[in-house]
């Protein structure tokens, strides 16, 4: 890249990069930046005739908000850990040749393109107590009726929500790791093997550390998404406690407009968690 960058600057050095960047940056600044600023202002009650920290005090002293925060953190941690683990396994599996590998890779990519709303409905119809798996269990004589099937959706432990995110994000993690493995090649591991390392040791001590930066970045994206998405917990979650984004939306759409600043404050809490993630996982050190 260095060579082409130098020549490019010499060649078309007349225009300045900021000129090309300006339109895109302006749009992001107005929409994204404006959205954050107005959300923050709204959480302090500005724009409705007063400014104060009432909404923040109300939100931070409310047990329901903390329970929702805890639930969303649980969903995000569990989904990210499982997706990273299974995604790594899938990448290790799919990088070696076996019959049907090409087809497996293609099918593996399919659910990257599936909208979350569609996937969440599929998980509901698959795992609910009258869903497809439950019917298979009944057909096999394992259960007598829907009530005999464990509650896997709209349940206390958010199993359905986590199942959705794992299902959706394993290919995401897996394909990123596969791309990284391909660009690393076999050399680092072969070198370790030729020095006497076992296959597992070569994987754990050589390959895994090399993949770690990509895994951390991809994991951060999965964490942020599973923490902050609305359409999945609204369909697959129980009615109380609800995930934090669902709670924000409930306050936002409440007929009582006085709860709007609270909705904004909860939205800012979600943004704050995302900002911490960017700080921890994304900023180059």
């Amino acid at each position, binding site marked *: 890249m260095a060579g082409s960058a130098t020549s490019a600057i010499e060649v*078309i050095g007349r225009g300045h990069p900021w000129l*090309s960047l300006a339109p895109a940056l302006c749009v992001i600044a107005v929409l994204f930046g404006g959205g954050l600023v107005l959300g923050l202002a*709204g959480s302090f009650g500005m724009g409705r005739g007063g400014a104060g920290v009432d909404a923040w005090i109300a939100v931070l002293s409310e047990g329901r908000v903390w329970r929702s925060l805890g639930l969303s953190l649980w969903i995000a941690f569990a989904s990210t850990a499982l997706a990273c683990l299974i995604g790594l396994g899938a990448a290790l599996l799919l990088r070696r040749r076996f019959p049907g590998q090409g087809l497996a890779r293609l099918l593996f990519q399919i659910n990257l*393109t599936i909208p979350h709303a569609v996937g969440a409905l*599929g998980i509901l119809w698959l795992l609910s107590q009258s869903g497809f798996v439950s019917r298979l269990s009944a057909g096999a004589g394992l259960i007598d009726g829907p009530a005999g099937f464990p509650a896997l959706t709209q349940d206390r432990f958010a199993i359905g929500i986590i199942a959705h995110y794992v299902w959706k994000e394993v290919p995401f993690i897996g394909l990123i790791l596969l791309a990284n493995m391909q660009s690393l090649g076999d050399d680092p591991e072969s070198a370790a093997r030729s020095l006497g390392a076992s296959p597992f040791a070569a994987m754990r001590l050589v390959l895994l550390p090399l993949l770690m930066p990509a895994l951390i970045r991809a994991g951060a994206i*999965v964490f942020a998404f599973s923490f902050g998405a609305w*359409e999945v917990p609204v*369909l697959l979650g129980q009615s109380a406690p609800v995930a934090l984004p669902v709670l924000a939306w409930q306050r936002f759409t409440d007929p009582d407009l006085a709860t709007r600043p609270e909705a904004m404050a909860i939205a800012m809490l979600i943004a704050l968690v995302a900002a911490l993630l960017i700080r921890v996982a994304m900023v180059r050190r």
Partner: protein
Amino acid sequence: MSARWRLVLGLMLVVASMAPLLPLGLWSVARGWYFPQILPATWTLEPWARALSPRSDIPEAFVTTTAIALAAAALSLVLGIPAGRALGLYRFRGKALVELALLAPVIVPGIAVGLGIHGVFLRLGLTNSALGVVLVHLVPTLPYVVFVMSGVFANYDAAAEAQARSLGARPLQVLWHVMLPAIAPGVAVAGLFAFLVSWSQYILTLTIGGGRVVTLPLLLYAQAGAGRNDQAGVLAVLSLAPGLVILALVARRITGRGVMIGGAG
């Protein structure tokens, strides 16, 4: 691990990936598919006929969703190609900050900014309109296009432009005959996936569209919530279609970088 084990595990992976799609497809061709029937007792195309009939609101939602996604993808390309060129070809002070500013919208969840954007658009008179929905979809689609295009331009040889210039080509001719053919495959991938990201949006559409701009994901939840599973099944299959077509078109071009930005959304 032996090849046989790889085959078995690969098969499990594929089955698990496809499993949630099975009930969606089955509901779209079933009538009264109740517990404990494993497969529908009556197979019928009636749900499709009803979904496509003039009295259904599904065709209109299909057109709305497509038009919004096309507009969002086109706008993202217009804004994102120059930005991607700047990031891919140049080194300059503040570049890391620019990349961070473009990464933030990818990480920060839609609802966190959507409620504030609603305030912005309320002042601009853009709420409850398709135009507002297109603009708000730029938040997830534009950074995606910029990052894909910056990857494309990082591998682009700008020296060819100088050669064309020295042979007498005008700047616009250089853009059209030298740059565009070189970046066209990347533009196609970026555009198709920007389309897909917009096509899949839910909460941003609902926040800014206020329920007046009805897209397929909104109808999907409305029908499923009303217990009309056959119509929800049709909507689910319709919503899957563009992704499958696009994947078939670009399967070999999906790289880690493109996946990195667009896959989670």
